């Protein structure tokens, strides 16, 4: 199985060597981003800080029986203008990670550790009031299921004007005119801007949600399964739209999806999560053609092949662990076909390869490689993100 994937793709997994520091191209810093932004950066922004830097994020949910470790030590970086995909099966912590960035967790959710640095400003210790400055103005979101996220009795245009009015304090006339422009930009003609949500098709509603996310010219847009409820044709149109907006506006995107084909098409880098931890992270072309972590291999392998045998779909036996009491070592160990004794005892350290891939697995020895402790040098992996 291991060989098959590697051979099929004609790819070879490079040696695990530390990347020389001078080999990386520094991603755009806050100072450079300032130049093309419509609004000034937050006052506290550090000039030479990267766009987003998440370190060792731990988000737990309090239940009666204890804390559910939904996100447990996730680190990643997002460079300016980059698209990062969060992949993984249901309940692996993708959405919780994204919601933690905006601190929109349910009432029983808490960020118990780590940092979320936007322009070098740590958002985790911010109060609810202080977070209001960043929500939607710096980090906005395209919600899943556009029909439910739109108020049925308010015109789409007026709903898109809302963030402009509430967040930026624009008067009604200006914000409405801007909303019409935004709708035009996402491909909803001006004469349809006065429509009510039920008068629009599913694809148009999703476009409207994208327009709403773009309203305040945010630094980062999070797409939480933006194409899940749509048919394939509309899905392609929405992805094309996101792609175009990224090109034209230099949008930085975090795309949450369990659809790997969507990820492969839109994202520069992919972060594969399993049971609240990072399993593998790296450029899309590398991760999908030469998956290293046994979980990634299984995940890529379980994707149905159009030309393959349709009766036998590779599935991953077993179920994700209960995050109330996760296994002590590697969380994938109980389902892993390569599991070794060490896997059930020691948490695998994150190992970085020369092609920018980062893997947390005991299969790759750490003796002669740089161990990525908590992703302190994670942005380095963002730099050589050049899709083949």
């Amino acid at each position, binding site marked *: 199985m291991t060989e098959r994937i590697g051979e099929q793709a004609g790819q070879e997994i490079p040696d695990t060597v530390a990347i020389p520091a001078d080999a990386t191209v520094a991603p755009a810093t806050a100072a450079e981003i300032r130049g093309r932004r419509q609004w000034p950066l937050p006052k506290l922004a550090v000039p030479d800080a990267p766009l987003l830097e998440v370190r060792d994020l731990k988000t737990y949910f309090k239940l009666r029986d204890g804390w559910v470790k939904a996100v447990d030590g996730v680190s990643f970086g997002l460079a300016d203008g980059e698209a990062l995909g969060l992949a993984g099966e249901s309940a692996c912590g993708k959405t919780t990670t994204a919601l933690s960035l905006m601190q929109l967790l349910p009432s029983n959710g808490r960020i118990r550790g780590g940092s979320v640095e936007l322009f070098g400003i740590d958002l985790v210790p911010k109060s609810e009031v202080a977070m209001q400055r960043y*929500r*939607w103005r710096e980090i906005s*979101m395209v919600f899943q299921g556009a029909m*439910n*996220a739109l108020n049925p*009795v308010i015109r789409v245009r007026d709903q898109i004007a*809302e963030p402009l009015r509430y967040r930026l304090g624009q008067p009604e006339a200006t914000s409405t005119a801007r909303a019409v422009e935004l709708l035009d930009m996402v491909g909803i003609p001006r004469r349809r801007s006065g429509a009510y949500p039920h008068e629009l098709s599913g694809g148009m509603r999703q476009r409207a949600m994208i327009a709403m996310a773009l309203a305040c010219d945010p630094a980062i847009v999070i797409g939480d399964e933006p194409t899940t409820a749509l048919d394939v044709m509309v899905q392609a149109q929405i992805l094309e739209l996101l792609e175009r907006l990224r090109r034209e506006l230099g949008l930085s995107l975090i795309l949450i999806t369990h659809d790997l084909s969507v990820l492969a098409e839109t994202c520069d880098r992919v972060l594969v999560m399993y049971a609240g931890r990072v399993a593998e992270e790296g450029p899309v072309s590398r991760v999908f053609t030469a998956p290293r972590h046994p979980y990634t291999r299984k995940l890529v392998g379980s994707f149905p092949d159009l030309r393959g045998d349709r009766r036998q779909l590779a599935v991953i036996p077993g179920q994700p662990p209960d995050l109330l009491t996760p296994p002590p070592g590697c969380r994938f160990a109980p389902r892993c076909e390569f599991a070794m004794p060490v896997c059930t005892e020691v948490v695998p350290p994150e190992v970085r390869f020369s092609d920018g891939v980062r893997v947390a697995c005991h299969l790759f020895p750490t003796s002669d490689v740089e161990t990525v402790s908590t992703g302190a040098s994670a942005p380095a992996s963002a730099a050589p993100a050049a899709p083949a």
Partner: protein
Amino acid sequence: MTAAEGAIQKVRSERWRLFLRNTGSFARRYASRADGVVGLLILLGFAVLALAPNVFVGPLETATRATGHAFDPPSATHIFGADELGRDMLNRTIHGARISMTIGLMATLITVVVGALVGIIAGYVGGRLDAVLMRISDFFLVLPTFVLAIILAPVIIEVVGSDAEILGIRATLLVIIVVIGLTSWATTARIIRSQVLSLKGRMFVDRARVIGAGPGRIMVRHILPNVMNLIVAQAVLTFATAVFTETTLSFIGLGDPFQPSWGEILNSAQSTGAPGLGAWWYIAPPAVSVVLVVLSFTLVGNALDDLLNPKSASRR
């Protein structure tokens, strides 16, 4: 004119055009319902009588003037006959429409405003406030409306004084209005609260909160328009009940004898023994008016409920 101003102008004119189009399509849908149209026509007739009684029968003073003889049966000069003092019944009935409809309208306003306010706040804020507000509404729901009204009306009249005038309305009338409002807001509040509870769980409310709308904005801008259909239908049905309650309270002698509402007329008919004398024309005009108004309001209310309620089957 700059491009932005042009766009704003365009947005405004388009908003007006859409409003007209939506109103037009609603009117067409309403016109297709025979019961609603009949109810609306009867209602319009009474509304015209209530708004301009002077045009039809002369000012209020003429209603108290005896132009015929005691218990004159209907004739060419007195179409509805005359009462025990020889006053024209048609004149009294039309002036009665004014009083009855005014009381109905004011009581409905109080009911709907208080009911919507309590319902939306209790439903949206929830928690302890919800519990307190709902226990209060339980109190008013459990008490029989009529008994409460009979007790409250004389008490309030005693406190305020029967000759006082507030905002140009005689205190006794105001008391009836307040009593009807007090006894009927709880139902409206309950209905609206239950709808708000289901709306609160919808994602667009979360979204509104994320993009920066505070609780007040969410309640006014996002929740209120969504329960407007309930409020309108509830208002129309409350109006019917209010007219009926007013008639009943006046009939048992809690009304204002100087303001001839339909209930007052029925009250005087009863006290002079009109039924025993066979003077049906003393009873029929106000009684039929009450029945017609209540019926037409119910018809309009049901039609509106069907058209405005998104879940109803007859909506197209």
